[in-house]
């Protein structure tokens, strides 16, 4: 069971900011997780279809999309940051 967090337009497209899910064992990294979620269609497909527009954090640490999710408790998916 992984906590999934969505921010900014990813959150708005999907319609929620937080959910919990258990991806199948063959989903090994963040990119795989995104593809698996996008298969749900609708807002998920819209938000997660183009991975070049997405960034991620595993357990609050920024990671590249090929980072492993083995043992992850929290994965966040979001657009490039624009603060400051």
């Amino acid at each position, binding site marked *: 069971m992984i906590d999934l967090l969505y*921010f*900014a337009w990813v959150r708005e497209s999907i319609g929620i900011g937080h959910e919990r899910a258990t991806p199948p064992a063959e989903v090994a990294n963040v990119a795989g997780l995104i593809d698996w979620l996008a298969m749900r269609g609708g807002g998920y497909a819209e938000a997660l279809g183009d991975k070049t527009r997405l960034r991620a954090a595993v357990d609050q*640490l920024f990671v590249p999309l090929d980072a492993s999710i083995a043992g992850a408790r929290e994965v*966040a998916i979001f*657009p490039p*940051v*624009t*603060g*400051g």
Partner: protein
Amino acid sequence: MLVTEAAIDIAAELDALERACGGAVATFTGLVRDDGGVEELFLEHYPVATEKALSDLAAEAARRWSLAAATVIHRVGAMAPGERIVFVGTVAAHRAEALEACAFLIDRLKTDAPFWKRETRGQDARWVGERESDRDAADRWKRS
């Protein structure tokens, strides 16, 4: 290091920085601009990760420069044009350290901390895109 929904009280922050007993105080304040009729700016963040990102930045600044104090305050939630989004303040014995650390903190905050801006103009609300120039500005601190 603080993320807050309340307005940023610059006078109080400056007062605290000046009491840190350095000779040089540098600050940067980012304000909401009314670019093309922006009526509201909404700042979203990733709570636990922003605190970690700001603490990491402060720790890196403290490693690179000899600072008597450093403050980073980032506001979140809804703001109107002219309001303060972010305040960075640094104190050091000499000005070069204070000025460089202040520029470092705001440059890196722009790319390393999980904040997102949404601008509302009338009925049109849109998320601000990544700026190439922000990435370049943050990168120069990695090269040096």
